[in-house]
Structures are given as C-alpha cells and as structure tokens.
C-alpha cells in the first residue's frame, strides 16, 4: 500500500482527493463562492467542525435519552467538568500534554507517508524507563538537569524503538503498518516487564508492581501556580514546531515529497532511505517524549501493565486536521474536554466509562461526513438532499 498517496500534504493546500481546500476556491474561476477569505474561513470552520460536533452531540443525546438519562445534565457535566470548573479545566490541559506530543509524532510520520501505528509501544517504553530511573537519578543530580536528562532519554528510547521498522522499510520495503503494530505489541509487554523485573520498588505487599515514586517537588514544574505542568508547553511547542517545519523548511518539504510521491522523491534526488529513517526516529522520539512527560508531569511512577492507549485516537484527529498543527491543537483540546468531562458525566449518569468513546466516534464520523458534503459543494454538485428531493418529486409526479 502506498500510504503516501493517502496522506495529504497541507503544504499547498492541496486537494488531490477532490475535497475542500482553500486554494480550490482561490483558483476556481467558475465555481465556488466568492466571499472574502476571512468570513470564508469562519464559515468553513463552522461547517466542518461546529456542525458535525452538534450533530454528534445530538445523536449522543438521543441515545442517552433512550437509555433513560438526562442528556442536558450529561452534556452540562461534560462542559462544566471539561472547561468551566477550574480544576476540571486543569485536568483537561494536563491531559493535552501527551496527546499533543503524540500528535506531533504522527504529523511528521503521516506527512512523510509513513504509517507509524506503533505509538503505544514507543510511548510506554519511554514512560517506563523514565518511571524506573527518574527517582533514582534525582538523588544524584539537581532537578533541572534530571528532568532534561529524563526527557532526553524518553525521546531516545521512543526513537530507538522505531529502528527495526525503519530499517525494514528503508532496506527491504517491508510495510510499516505490519512492523510498527508488532513492535508496539512487543513494546507494551516489554515496558511492563521492565517495571516488574528491573525497577520494582522494594516495598512489600504491593498489589500491582510499580516503580519508585518521583517526589512531587521533583516533577515537571507547574504553570502559574496551577496543577498544569510544563509538559503542556512542551506539547504545544512540539506541534507548532512540527507545523512550521513541515511548511517552511527543507526537511519538511523533503518529507512532504516523500509522502506524496516516492517515485518523485527518487527522481528529484532525495535520499529516500535516509529520510524514511529520519522520519521514524523523529516520530518515535515524540511518542517516547509523550510517555516521559506523562510520567514526569502527572504519574510520577509507572505500574506494571500501565497502558493508557492514547495514540490510536489521535490518528484520525491528525488526519481530520490535515496535518495542520493549529487545527490539531484545537482537536486535541476538544478530545481532552470530552474525555475528562466524559469520565465524570458517564459516572454520574451511571453509564460505562467507554460511553465517552462512542461520542468521540460520532464526532469523528460526522466530521468526515461534513468534509464530504463540503467537497461536493465545492465541486458544484447537487447535495444529497437536493437529489433526494428531486427523486421524491419525480416519483410523486409520476404517481399523479
């Protein structure tokens, strides 16, 4: 499979797939509305984000109603817990940190047409090594140095875990979906093993094996006296840096060319194998860093079997954002609100916690559907509703 052909480069606002894009409207001489680009942007955001979000909320609400619960109370709790209440908002922002770093890693990989689906393994290895070492290392060095050292190590570990898929792809062209998924499964187990075998706390009588705990005072510094740790800043900087890199630098363009057309990359003299390895390493480093940040900022320790399985949900967000960093940040915020708010709302409504996933799934699906209608509108095709009403009218006419 050519992941490359699927992965779109935002670089030129392209729309090879015939979907919505701003350039289409700029270039479209004969079709497309001619609003100023600013109102057009707002309208697009409404159409592609707010509308599907509302549709998902509505559908989920009907489901909640069917289950005999109060949807208004449910969503009220989500908003209150996820955004309004200070402690909830802090939770939301804290949750964003690893998600943003994962998103950065995915943007790099997907732009270069590389399907790094093994983020969970890379994340957990970074997390467990940091969890195992941080407390011990902090005995030996000052906090700042320890944090930098640990963050660097988590990134290095995450990157290292991509070397096998990277080399297999670069040397033998073996598809990375297969290898990253398998390496991830191994990595998840290895991470747990690391905790159990090497970094087990000496304490007896523990239910679940875990590493030594890192003192709260030794963790990532928090921001402005809140509980939100500076991992959020690292995450934001990472996404924005990746966004800018993909659009304005030589490496970014090279990766985009690789992602869009491997033959063209060869033809224009790019060192394809090297770029593949670089992409994997960069992507894995962000994943590992996400794990490190999560441990250094929030958990302070790692338990055996710890696996928040964060990466898979971020994959569609990055695609929906079309590798755009700013949009990704907005989507990650939305996801965090839904997860944090959803945890409490489902508990209060007596629903299983996984119900939140259903809402997220509805948002994803309605967002892609919105893109479809937008693309049709731009191509100047009739909408489904128009066609349907035509048919109905025609049928009605024939009946008369």
């Amino acid at each position: 499979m050519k992941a490359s052909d699927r992965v779109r480069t935002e670089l030129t606002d392209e729309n090879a797939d015939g979907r919505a894009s701003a350039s289409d409207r700029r270039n479209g001489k004969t079709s497309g509305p001619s609003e100023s680009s600013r109102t057009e942007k707002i309208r697009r955001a409404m159409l592609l984000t707010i509308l599907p979000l509302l549709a998902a909320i509505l559908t989920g609400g009907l489901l909640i109603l069917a289950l005999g619960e109060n949807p208004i109370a449910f969503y009220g709790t989500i908003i209150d817990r996820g955004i309004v209440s200070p402690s909830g908002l802090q939770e939301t922002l804290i949750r964003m940190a690893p998600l943003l770093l994962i998103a950065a890693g995915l943007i790099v990989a997907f732009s270069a047409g590389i399907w790094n689906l093994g983020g969970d393994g890379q994340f957990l290895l970074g997390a467990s090594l940091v969890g195992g070492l941080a407390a011990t290392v902090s005995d030996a060095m000052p906090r700042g140095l320890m944090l930098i050292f640990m963050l660097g190590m988590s990134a290095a570990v995450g990157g290292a875990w991509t070397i096998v898929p990277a080399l297999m792809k670069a040397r033998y062209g073996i598809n990375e979906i297969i290898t990253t998924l398998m390496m991830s499964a191994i990595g998840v187990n290895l991470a747990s093993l690391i905790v159990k075998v090497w970094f087990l706390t000496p304490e007896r009588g523990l239910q679940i094996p875990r590493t030594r705990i890192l003192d709260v005072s030794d963790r990532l510094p928090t921001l402005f006296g809140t509980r939100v740790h500076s991992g959020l800043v690292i995450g934001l900087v990472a996404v924005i840096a990746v966004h800018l890199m993909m659009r304005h630098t030589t490496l970014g363009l090279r990766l985009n060319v690789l992602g869009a057309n491997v033959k063209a990359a060869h033809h224009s003299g790019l060192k394809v194998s090297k770029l593949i390895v670089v992409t994997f390493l960069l992507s894995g480093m962000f994943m590992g860093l996400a794990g490190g940040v999560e441990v250094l900022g929030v958990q302070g320790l790692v338990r055996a079997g710890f696996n928040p399985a964060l990466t898979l949900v971020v994959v569609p967000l990055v695609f929906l954002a079309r590798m755009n960093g700013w949009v990704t940040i907005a989507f990650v915020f939305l996801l965090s609100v839904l997860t944090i708010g959803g945890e409490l709302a489902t508990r209060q409504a007596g629903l299983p916690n996984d119900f939140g996933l259903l809402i997220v799934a509805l948002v994803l699906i309605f967002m892609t559907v919105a893109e479809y209608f937008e693309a049709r509108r731009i191509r100047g095709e009739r909408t489904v509703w128009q066609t349907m009403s035509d048919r109905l009218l025609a049928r009605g006419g024939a009946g008369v």
Partner: protein
Amino acid sequence: MDAESAGSVKDSIAPLIEITGITKRFPGVLANDDISLSIEKGEVHCLLGENGAGKSTLISILSGMTRPDAGTILIEGTETEINSPRQALDLGIGTVYQHATLVPTLTVLENLILGNTKGATLDESEGRRRLDELASILGTDVDPNAVAGDLALDEQQVIEIIKALWKGKTALILDEPTAMLAPAGVAELGKMFQRLKAGGLAIVFITHMLHEAIEMGDRVTVLRQGRVAGSIGPDELRSEQSERLRDRIVEIMFGSEATELGDVAELHVDVLEDHPDQGSLEKATSDAGGRSIGAPILKLDNVSLEASPASHGLHNINLTIAEGEILGIAGVGGNGQAELAEVLAGQRRVDSGQIHLLHDGNLQRIDRLGVHARGQMGLRYVSDDRRGEATVGSMSVSINLVLKKIGDAPFWRWHIMQAGEIQRNAESAIENFDIRTPSADTNISKLSGGNIQKVILARETMSNPRIVIHNKPTHGLDVRTMLMVRERIRQMAAEGVSAVVISNHLEELLDLCDRFAVLSKGRVIGIVENGPDAERHIGDLMVGGTVS
C-alpha cells in the same frame, strides 16, 4: 434481409451516435462547452485539438466515465443516458482510454475476461477463443498468460485495443492509441480500421498527429477550449491535398495567429515516409550543420547495468557527446532507453563502467554522484513519466518548479523556504514557457499533459544547464507545444547546451539530432550521423537488431 434494409433506412435518417449540447465543467475549467457532433457507422471520426481542449472529457462522457452537466446523447435516434461504463459497454461502445486501464498484476487473459464472464467460475476458454480471434484481426500474437505489467507499452496498447473490441460491437473509441505505437504499429492500426469500418463499426479516433488524422480519418472534428472549433467532412478530406488540409486543421486548432505553424516539422512526416531519400531531411541536417560543435561534455565508458526479468539492462555502452550536440537515442521502446536515461540522471547506479561530465574545464567522474549533485553540475533529466515521477501531483506548480533544488539558494536560506523567491521563479517560468495554469499555486495534477511538460521543461532548463536528457519529450503533446519543445531544444543547442533525446518517433529524432545511437537489448548497435541516408541506416539497424 428485411431487417437489414430497415436498419439501413434508419441509418440514413439518424446517425449511430449523435451528441448535442454536451457541457462539462470542472472546478476552474469549462472542459466541454455545448458540444454537438455525430458519429456515423462505418466511419473513422477523428477528434483533434490542443492539450486540454476537452477531447478526453468528451469521450469519457460517451464511455460512461463522466456524466455531463448538460446535453443529450442520441443512439440511433433514441435519447440514451450513459451513466456507467457498464452501460456504455452494453450499448456496444468499447473504449481505449488515454491512461492505461490494464491491471498490471493480472495476466493478459485475466484482464480480458474481467467483467466479461458469466457464471460462477472463471471460464477461460471463451476468453482464449476471443483472444485468438481478435489477435488475428489485429495481426499480432500475444501470450495470454503473460502478466500485463511485464509487457512493453506498445504490447499493452494492443491488449487495450483487443479489450475494447471485445465489447465494442457498434462503436470503438480510441484516445491517443498511437502515442505508444511504433510507425509499423500505426500502419497496422490503420489497416484494422479499414476492416472494422467495413464491418460497420463506428470509430472515434483521437490523435495529435495530423497526418494520422488525414490518412486514417473520414471526418475530422477539431475542439478548442471545450468547443467545436470546426470540422472537415469526408468529401473534403478525400479531395483536398494533405498540405492544404493540414494548414486548415492547424488554423482551426490554434486560430489564424498560428499560421506560422504551417511549416511545422511534424508535417514532414509523410514526406519522409513517402520519399525517404529526399526533401526535408536536408533541413534537419543543415540545422545541425550550422551549429558549432565543441569539446566532449559527457563521456560514457563501458557503462553496464545488469539485466533483470523486467529489463534488458545495459551492456558496455560507450558514447561521447560534444558541447552543443544533440544525440538521438533510437530503437524500439523497452531496449534500455529508460535505463540509460536513469543512469545518466543519477537515479540509478551503474553496475560497472564510468561516466564523466565536463565541469570546471575538465571531465570529472560523476557515476558515483546523486541526482542533485549532477543537476548542479548542469546535467538535467526530463523524464517521460510526467505524472508518475517527474512531478508531485498534490503540490503546486511553483513547488514543482523547484523540486530538484530543495535546499538551494535563493529558494532556501538556512534551510528556510523563501516563498517570495519561489513565487517569482514560478511567475517567470509561467511567463517564459507559456504555461497555462489558473495560478502558480494550482496543484500540478490539474494541468493538462502539455502544460505539465512545459513545467518540467522549465525546471530542467532553468539556471545554466550544460546537457539535458530528454526522454520522449513531446509524447502526447499537441502540435504547437511539440514544436515549442523542439524549438527550445534546438535553441539551447545553439547556445552550447547539449541534449540526449530519446524518442520512439524516428521523425522527431531526424528533425532534431546531429547523431543517433541505436539501442537494442541494452546495447548500442550502431552510431549514425544525421544525413540523407540516416533513416534507412537506422531502420536497417533496428530491423537487424531486433531480429537477431
């Protein structure tokens, strides 16, 4: 008998296919604008027009691939909607598309029976029978069990035609079928048209070669910017002289401003074919003779590439190209041309042998250098795979123009893209090469083939080229663009920029080149100087080379 005569009476009233008012709009382009024409039984109807005129769009509407925004199609007088390729096939309309529609991983036979079998299990016997039958009509033999992707492009083209004929019982549509064919294949196709016409089939034939249209067509319709710009009926086609017809067609195609094209090189073709020893050849040689040819700029010593199942490889190639010289690579396609081009460009490493390029006043060894380094030394490559490798379809024209310069000043400084420089560069290329695009930001995939070719040519010849390798530089281009490309190659040679031109149109090579190297099975089997006897010599070599 009765039915027969009734049918013919009906024929005389209504044409086989009559289209009226067909309009099709794509974002930013009106591809077909109120087109009306009729296609008669037993006639070859030629569709001509420049790149992007809307020919393929029109036939894709007939074949059910595209649905028109407006307009109607009448088949034998009854209004018919063609909503899918299936419907078109069921109506007996078979199509050979401009872009390959064979499944490369399937065998020839599987490709043919795809969509043509009834019943629960695959019945290959029927397929085999039809293949034999159709192949004999076409005068070729094909191995039914060969994997389609392994066949040479011209062989694939024959399979495409057989596939279309299978279902095309009333009409056969061919979109640039001759682009991949050698002259002998084109002649064969012409004979096939005669047989099929005699059988009452209607044929729609798209080509950029005017002489093909004039020789093979019974009726010519010219499209221009999506509209019917004019047409020439059977009587006129038969009575007029071909020179006059050409002038008329060119005028309809490009308007009166383009009458200077009357002297087009393509027009010499059948002069060459009819009287290979005289006439216009002098012109080509004198062109070359007028140039001063300098010191060697590129030297190949025993360059070899191992053969593989898909390729003949290259074997001990020794060539020297001088400054300002145009060297043609002749030979039947698939005999190592692509390999040679890629080895020269640096896309592929030689297995043995050396390549030297004149740089800083002396010949420097370059066979270990990459594409970028060679490009900076002035060695450039115009690939024949425009959409596949030469461009990134999802990126803008302006980025595609600097694709081989990623990281170089002034477009990048400290690894940061200089959008202004890239934009300026694009604007000047669009201006200088007359690239038709809505803007420099448009994705290159939206451009027509000819305009993509101009972008590539602009990219490869900008900023001090020393030698340019052109692989099928005019393939699929309309007459005007083709002339522009050839003129550019010639003009650069006059300025001392050498060229290696690979083409399967001998006429093109004879028109452009000073010397020819004839390739067969990865070997240079002869070097011929351009001159009155060149065509005969090359022909002899090619025949000898392919037979042995």
